[in-house]
């Protein structure tokens, strides 16, 4: 039998292993427009997660037969770098990555005005450079900003974070150890202005009451991330505006 973990993840004062409160998000740093070639891009640090997202499109579809007559073809690739985790991950897309690529794409379908660009494709690339629990959520947070940065009309930004259960307590934004040692993990993506849940997954065990609380907790987390996303977007375009004004003055 394996040894019981001695170290507790939540202490008597409700402080988590990384010093956070139960309903507290990790520190989030967002940079919009992090890459040169992409039509839109964003870099997100969510705790120890480091994630790059890039968007190319709307553009011609390759291969052509995949093009849709009435809307854009939204495609997504979620991928983890081999060095992003403790033990090297093979760079070939795993089953997990394929599933996540699918659910992330589906999380963006309600956000993008896909009917504006028939017969084109919009490709979303999410690269996890370092992973520490909650990469799909941080990836969505980044990719939504990359879509906005690409100038693609959106109904709303999509924000994502997880809630879960660790040592019998409901917590927000699980780290990798909390996910592995904990009893449940519920990642959720949310459009704050439209009050719409666009991604929902869960593994673990929750009673109906816990489930309701966990959903509300995750939604609250998403709302906080939404504010950070808006600020990050504004920051970039304030910089752009200032640069233009400065140039105009110099002339």
């Amino acid at each position, binding site marked *: *039998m*394996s040894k019981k973990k001695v170290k507790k993840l939540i202490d008597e004062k409700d402080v988590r292993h990384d010093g956070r409160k139960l309903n507290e998000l990790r520190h989030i740093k967002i940079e919009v427009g992090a890459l040169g070639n992409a039509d839109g891009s964003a870099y997100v640090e969510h705790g120890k997660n480091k994630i790059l997202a890039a968007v190319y499109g709307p553009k011609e579809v390759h291969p052509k037969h995949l093009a849709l007559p009435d809307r854009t073809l939204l495609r997504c690739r979620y991928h983890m770098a081999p060095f992003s985790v403790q033990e090297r991950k093979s760079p070939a897309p795993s*089953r*997990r990555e*394929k*599933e996540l*690529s*699918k*659910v992330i794409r*589906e999380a963006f*379908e*309600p956000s993008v005005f896909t009917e504006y660009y028939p017969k084109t494709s919009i490709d979303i690339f999410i690269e996890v450079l370092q992973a520490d629990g909650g990469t799909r959520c941080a990836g969505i947070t980044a990719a939504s900003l990359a879509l906005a940065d690409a100038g693609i009309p959106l109904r709303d930004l999509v924000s994502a974070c997880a809630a879960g259960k660790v040592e019998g307590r409901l917590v927000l934004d699980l780290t990798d150890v909390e996910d592995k040692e904990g009893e449940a993990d*519920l990642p959720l993506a949310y*459009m704050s202005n*439209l*009050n*719409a*849940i*666009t*991604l*929902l*997954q*869960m*593994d*673990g*065990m*929750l*009673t*109906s009451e816990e*489930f*309701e609380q966990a*959903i*509300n907790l995750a*939604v609250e987390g998403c709302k906080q991330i939404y504010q950070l996303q808006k600020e990050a977007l504004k920051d970039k375009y304030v910089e752009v505006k200032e640069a233009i004004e400065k140039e105009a003055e110099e002339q």
Partner: protein
Amino acid sequence: MTSPVVARVKQKRIAQLISLGKRLDERGLTDYREAQVEVGVIEKAEGSARVRLGRTEVLVGIKIEIGEPFSDVPNKGVLTVNAELVPLASPTFESGPPNENAIELARVVDRGIRESEAIDIEKLCIEPGKKVFIVFVDVYVLNYDGNLIDASALAALAALLNTKVFNYEVKEGEVQIKPGYKSLPILNYPIAVTFAKINDKLVVDPWLEEEQVMEARLTMTIEKDGKICALQKGGDGYFRIQQILEAAKIARQKAAELRKLVVKK
């Protein structure tokens, strides 16, 4: 996978009826199609079950082999779920490696079994760190008429309950198979319940044409005590919080009903 074509006029009819609380095949919004479960249909497999959900038909075979455990859990057996969308099941299925739909199907079935701890995998350890039983759950879709997840999860559970593990003894580090069998140690009975959102209403067990019309899909897997053990949202649309909480209530009832088909007390 391209999706089967449903005429616009029929799509409209399906959606209109649902907003009136009716369905094209005359079911109520929270009714399942007729479900049939047959077990032990493949003698060479250690366990098997065939489930029919209306015209949807899924066969699950269980094979058990001896292999190495994962290094982080040396005292536990291994569970592997794979799904094949066999080309004979639908004109829209193609041969080749599993596509994202097949992978999602397998992973949702897997999540229900794993998270509810349906199999007592600690009892599947032969020699810690060296030899354990590997349980292969292979989902074989034979006829596709919608709601593959629920049919597959039900068939997987029925097959696991029907599974026999061969007796063995360890002699000088070698595993020798002895005559006779034991049942697989089962601790829980997870049941998947899938909803489609059509015209902003929830319907249970969507058939193929409803799946073509649906805005989004939500699967909830419920374990024996009514707790939720797995969730998966699919499809291009979204859900409201209230809809998800309503779905959780319905799912608990429906899971209890379906469970009676495979768990005979």
